[in-house]
């Protein structure tokens, strides 16, 4: 029997507290509550006692055992926590001293604008059409109601290719030839936008690039009016540029549309109050538009008495550069990574 239970408990607690690590704790545990411990021996010796004394002594031993096991458990938790803390501290990493090895690239600013423009028109029920950049004179001019020798051809500084007879194949000067291809490829109704690269014999300067990007829109359906054109441009501009941005149409001239118009949008910088960007007019020039000319319908075999439609187009690069505060369009094509990474 154990003479002095409190002393045994104190001793066990002391040893448990003194255990420096989990291994030592296990060995202490074996000593104090294991099979060969004094406690186990005492329990084995209970059988020699009379029933009352046995019950009494048994309860006392159980209480001691529970107390000791509780102490072991607490000590174990503390040691485990300390071990984890040590291990984690050893793993400490300064994430700012780590060099990132994977980087995300950037889409070109003009691509981002083009995608957004497409998405706005898709939301309005338009499809997107692509077309060739090298075109015949017919698609670039003839079918668009620019007969050979037409003075309006001089509005475009056309680049010709040495293919076939002289001046029969051009680098498209606008995205409008895609209108013809879209109409030839199918029947109305047509609601389509046609983005892409165009070419003119322009010296590259702050506001011109010899290759540049346009987006063109074409709607052909029954009963399409000039009012529809203006309304469609309004919904596009408010969706793309923001609420309150509306359009102003001014009479203009393009051989492939009539009536034709230039369209301006509310200045996105001053909201129409007038500022430096808009030359204090409150408007920014954006593009051209108009009702599809009957001769254009005739080129593709559409009956202008049945179908009517409108077309519009504008440059993507200049608009985008202006919105992003890029004063010189040539910055768009240097491919300087410090430029590309800003967008």
């Amino acid at each position, binding site marked *: 029997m154990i003479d002095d239970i409190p002393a045994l408990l104190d001793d066990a607690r002391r040893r448990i507290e003194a255990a420096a690590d989990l291994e030592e704790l296990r060995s202490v545990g074996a000593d104090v509550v294991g099979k060969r411990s004094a406690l186990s021996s005492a329990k084995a010796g209970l059988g020699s006692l009379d029933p009352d004394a046995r019950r009494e002594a048994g309860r006392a031993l159980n209480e001691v055992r529970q107390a000791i096991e509780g102490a072991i458990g607490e000590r174990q938790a503390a040691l485990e926590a300390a071990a984890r803390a040590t291990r984690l501290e050893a793993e400490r990493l300064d994430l700012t001293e780590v060099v990132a090895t994977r980087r995300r690239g950037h889409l070109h600013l003009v691509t981002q604008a083009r995608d957004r423009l497409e998405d706005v028109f898709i939301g309005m029920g338009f499809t997107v059409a692509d077309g060739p950049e090298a075109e015949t004179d017919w698609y670039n001019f003839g079918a668009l109601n620019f007969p050979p020798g037409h003075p309006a051809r001089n509005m475009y500084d056309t*680049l010709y290719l040495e*293919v076939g007879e002289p001046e029969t194949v051009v680098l498209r000067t606008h995205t409008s030839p895609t209108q013809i291809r879209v109409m030839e490829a199918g029947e109305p109704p047509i609601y389509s936008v046609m983005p892409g690269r165009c070419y003119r014999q322009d010296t590259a300067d702050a506001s011109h690039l010899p290759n540049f990007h346009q987006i063109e829109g074409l709607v052909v359906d029954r009963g399409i009016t000039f009012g529809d054109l203006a309304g469609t441009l309004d919904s596009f501009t408010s969706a793309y540029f923001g609420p309150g941005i509306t359009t102003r149409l001014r009479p203009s001239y393009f051989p492939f549309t009539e009536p034709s118009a230039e369209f301006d949008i509310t200045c996105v910088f001053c909201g129409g109050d007038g500022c430096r960007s808009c030359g204090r007019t409150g408007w920014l020039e954006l593009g051209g538009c108009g009702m599809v000319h009957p001769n254009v319908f005739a080129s593709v075999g559409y009956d202008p008495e049945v179908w009517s439609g409108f077309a519009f187009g504008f440059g993507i690069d200049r608009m985008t550069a202006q919105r992003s505060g890029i004063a010189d369009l040539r910055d768009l094509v240097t491919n300087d990574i410090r430029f590309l990474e800003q967008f």
Partner: protein
Amino acid sequence: MRVPLSWLCDFAPLDLPVDELVATLNDLGLAVESVDRVGEGLDGVVVAQVLEIDAIPGADKIRRVMVDAGGDEAVQVVCGAWNFAVGDLVPLATVGSVLPGDFAIGARKMKGVASHGMLCAPDELGLPGAHDGILVLPEGLAPGTPFATAMGITADVVVELEINPNRPDAMSVVGIARDLAARLGLDFAIPEPAVGDGGGGASSAAVTIEAPERCGRFIGATIGGISVGPSPAWIANRLTLAGMRPINNVVDASNYVMLELGTPNHAYDLAQLPGRGLVVRRAEDGEAIVTLDDVERTLTSEDLLICDAERQPVGIAGIMGGASSEISDATTEVLLEAAWFLPIAISRSSRRLKLRTEASARFEKGVDPAILDVAVRRFCELLGVEPAAPITDERGELPIAPTVRVRRARVNDVLGTELADDDIVGLLDPIGFTTAVVAPGQLDVGIPSWRPDSEIEIDVIEEVARLYGYSAIPRTIPTSSLTGGLTPYQRDRRLVRQLLAGLGSSEAWSTTFLSSESIARCGLEPSSAVVVTNPLVADESLLRPSLLPGLVAALAYNGARRQPGVHLFEIGKVFRAPAPGAPLPVEWEAVAVAMAGCDATEARSAWEVLAEGLLLDDVHLEAGEAPGLHPTRTARILVGGVLMGHLGEVDPDVLRLHGIEERVAWLELDLEALLGAPHGAGLYRPISKFPSSDIDLAFEVDDAVPAGTVASTLRQGDDLVVDVVLFDVYRGEQVRSGRRSIAFTVRLQAADRTLTDDDVAAVRRRLIDGVESAHGAALRG
């Protein structure tokens, strides 16, 4: 076209604020590019005569100038301009005056010298002219005279308009005034010049039109009593405001008439005109003439000449007069020409001769043939002379101004308006389109002689819309029964962009135009590239046959700016000369990736990501070579057995020529072909619920046998093979020279059972046999 408001007021009583004038012009399609207010802010500006000019100690940019400004004492000013001398007359803005742009002049001190006013440059006074010196005034003006009085300047507004090519009528003061009057509901009239009919008894000019198909009308007037000298101030001022330099009274009157009526005209010195008559004929091929600008020009039979009565050329019709009969100080008698020439012929001649003039710009768009006689008489009126003889008026073939049937319903259908017949009539009549309602909703519209652009119904509808006002047309939105969206190709193209950006490459935009050298420098062949006939830069005359030159140049650009390791990609059209007989060059959309500081393995990874992202099927790589790429580090990319492009590294020689000191991983594909191959997810293949087993196999194989081929053999070696991963390549003592060890982990799995050891052993044997027999390989122990 620059137009002073005062000049417009000669034809219509315009009285509206400038901003409303500008808005009205814009709304009429006469786009206002700028507005200059002249003659404002000139109070306090006086004529001054320079008395002394002295240096200021310690100043090398400014000088002290003493001027006589009409007062008792000389005025001292400090001036930074050097273009005048003692005795010159100059404008002085006195203290207290407020120049255009609210520029107040006060007394100042510069370098300790007091300045009591400012000597002015033209732009500081709101006058045309550059800011490159003080305006030096004509001699004879009295110092102290108000500048505006001395110069005959009255306050005016000059609008600069951009005229559309379909509006030759608006290349004249009267055309612009007519539009404004119509929109504003004002009267408009072109006054009849107060000139007699030329009954002076002299003989009329003989005019012969030998090319009536080119010259529809030709008026010749002999005008005597001319004394060449300066124009009256008001004419000189108007021309100046309109942007033309006054020359002498004859030339100025000619220009004035052109600007006012839109009628180019030409005055020949009659004394220099043998035969005192003119012949209009086509040039002979190779015939030459020295034009007014003293340039000899060689012509073809497509060019039209004005000749003297002896058939010697005295001018290129509609473009430029000849030097031989130019007006001189001695001229006393002129023959004035006003004519109508076939517009398209003038346009072609002007283009071929690369000679564009104020006259050709008008003739090529079509001048008003009905107003030519008014123009001639207006010329006389301006000069204060009379025709010396009856005016000769010869006709060739003139287009007949059409009458156009216009349907009211069509007008409203096109515009989305609800105009009545009367509304249409009310809009058209004031701009000279004569209207007759022949039945309800049916109008016959006579096109005026000055609107050759109007020929058919839609042209008239445009005029209705223009005069009604585009802003007045109600705006609506059409309802489409269609659903919009991208095509599969367009969706996948966006996906490719995102995949490549996700890999860390940024999107470049390189030019389509390349020089032969830049193509050759990339190891490519320039001779099959498409040639631009008229390139802007002579040596950038080829269309890119590949994205390689553009992207390599971009890497070099970045490298030269201490930005190594740049990764770029581009998607764009590339071109090749057409097959014989094909109308257009071959063009296709290519995608390319260039990664500086990376070797070919990165290109391989990029391709893997693309193939995975697009879920391409039947993809193979095989060793190959391609121009511009590293000869021993390039693979051909095959999808479904079709060559789609190449990956690897850029040829070190190409990099050296571009000054690039890093390796550059490269991937280029024909995007259209690639996205044309089967790709995308198919039906779901259920995942086996049974455990898989891995076996490792190492083979000794000839270096010539690609690892990818061995992997394919393993993959196809048994139905139970679900994955093959290369995990080790070893070259060295343990294997024979010219061979290497390649080790794979092969994963086996059945859909319907757990594999037994016997199953695995049998497959293993089959795979070993297959690789050994197909590739001359030996299993390593």
